[in-house]
């Protein structure tokens, strides 16, 4: 049977040739059409989380007073139950946005500062970093469209500091643990969505940042959640820690698989994180207005 020689290459996958691409004038249209066709991530707003956020504000306010009086670094606030009364009596939040109309959790004071990356001294497993699912600072910069020829950061900083680390298991994200650094420019648009019921919470200032500890139980998903596009992301009970830096405006999100790790593991991981601040202005899709020769390591 005669066939087209091209049919021999059906399902063939090539990695040896890269052809020269032509300018694409309708790229924006295609991107818009694709994004419109993709279902929106479910943005549910559980009432319980509103209580949590309100309680965080109260705690932060109290913690702030303690800081002024004692002039010492604030310590972590002990966990406490959040009562509905606290919610009702709270009229202003500090940095956690209480209008949840667009996102589960927003940060009302968030504004773009400089790009940051992290190194992590403590990880619950001893796996080499290469075995992780990760995004380096270089990847973050490239992902944001910075022209790398104008970046003069050291290779060490670009390739050995990270914005995302995920212990991957059996080829899918989770259920090990995830440490992600959300840039200040992205915080306002980032959606933290947790499936199921949030069964445990504490809140307070931790390492100079505003913290929220959550445990979610996806087995208590609603029917709508269970059939949503993102349901696969959260199938197991997880502990989460969200840390918001009040002046640099980035957020550290740490999540661990509850069956394997205790919630205190979140604190241990957080304590081992060092933030590296660049002088590169942080814009979601912008170019690179400032280059940096000098990096200031250390937590802000």
């Amino acid at each position: 049977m005669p066939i087209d020689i091209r049919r021999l290459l059906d399902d063939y996958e090539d990695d040896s040739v890269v052809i020269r691409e032509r300018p694409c004038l309708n790229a924006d249209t295609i991107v818009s059409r694709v994004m419109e066709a993709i279902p929106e991530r479910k943005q549910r707003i559980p009432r319980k989380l509103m209580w949590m956020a309100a309680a965080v504000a109260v705690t932060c306010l109290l913690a702030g007073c303690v800081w002024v009086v004692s002039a010492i670094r604030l310590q972590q606030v002990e966990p406490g139950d959040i009562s509905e009364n606290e919610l009702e009596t709270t009229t202003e939040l500090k940095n956690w946005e209480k209008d949840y109309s667009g996102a589960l959790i927003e940060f009302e004071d968030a504004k773009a500062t400089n790009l940051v990356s992290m190194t992590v001294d403590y990880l619950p497993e001893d796996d080499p970093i290469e075995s992780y699912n990760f995004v380096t600072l270089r990847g973050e910069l490239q992902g944001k469209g910075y022209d790398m020829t104008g970046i003069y950061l050291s290779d060490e900083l670009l390739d050995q500091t990270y914005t995302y680390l995920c212990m991957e298991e059996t080829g899918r994200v989770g259920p090990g643990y995830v440490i992600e650094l959300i840039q200040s420019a992205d915080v306002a648009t980032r959606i933290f969505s947790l499936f199921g019921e949030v069964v445990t919470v504490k809140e307070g200032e931790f390492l100079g940042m505003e913290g929220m500890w959550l445990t979610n139980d996806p087995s208590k998903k609603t029917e709508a959640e269970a059939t949503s596009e993102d349901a696969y992301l959260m199938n197991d009970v997880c502990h989460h820690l969200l840390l918001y830096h009040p002046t640099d405006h980035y957020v550290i999100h740490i999540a661990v698989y509850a069956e394997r790790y205790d919630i205190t593991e979140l604190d241990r991981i957080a304590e081992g994180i060092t933030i590296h601040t660049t002088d590169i202005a942080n814009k979601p899709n912008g170019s690179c207005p400032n280059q940096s020769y000098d990096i200031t390591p250390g937590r802000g």
Partner: protein
Amino acid sequence: MTEAEMRRRLHRGNRQDFEEIVRYYTPYVMTILQNQLGTEHTEADVEDVCMDVFLALWHNRERIHSDNLRGWLVRVARNKACDLVRKKGLRTIPLEDLVVVSDDHALEGLDQKERSRMVRDALHKLGDSDREIFLRYYYYEQKINEIAGEMGMNPETVKSRLKRGREALKKILEQEGFLHAD
């Protein structure tokens, strides 16, 4: 951003990350599709297929484990373009591009992976340059002049080396028992 980092971002399932990936690869995928679909199709056809490719990427994001994301996109783009071409029955195949499979069911009967392995092995027996010309012409559907321009060769040289590669590949596949001798 490296291909591995692209894949990691893809796995995160974040819309913003995905939009960046789509924006990054759109010109490349469009170039592939324009080559595959040629002038017989409208720009709207090309756009539609391009959109299908990226929707396939989104829906399969969890199952993609190869770091060769570009290769995955090209394969899917090519297969979707081929489906459209076959559906519309627009392509005329030059005689020199026809090969005779040894069994009417050879294509369908062979496991996809087995066929890919056989073709890959045969391709790797070609010289690097001949293989690249063969792939550019038959896989990426570039025109002779385009290949010549990108590889810095005379178009006549490309033609003669393409012929040489085609004959060599046919011979290898005949020896494997997959093709009949002409």
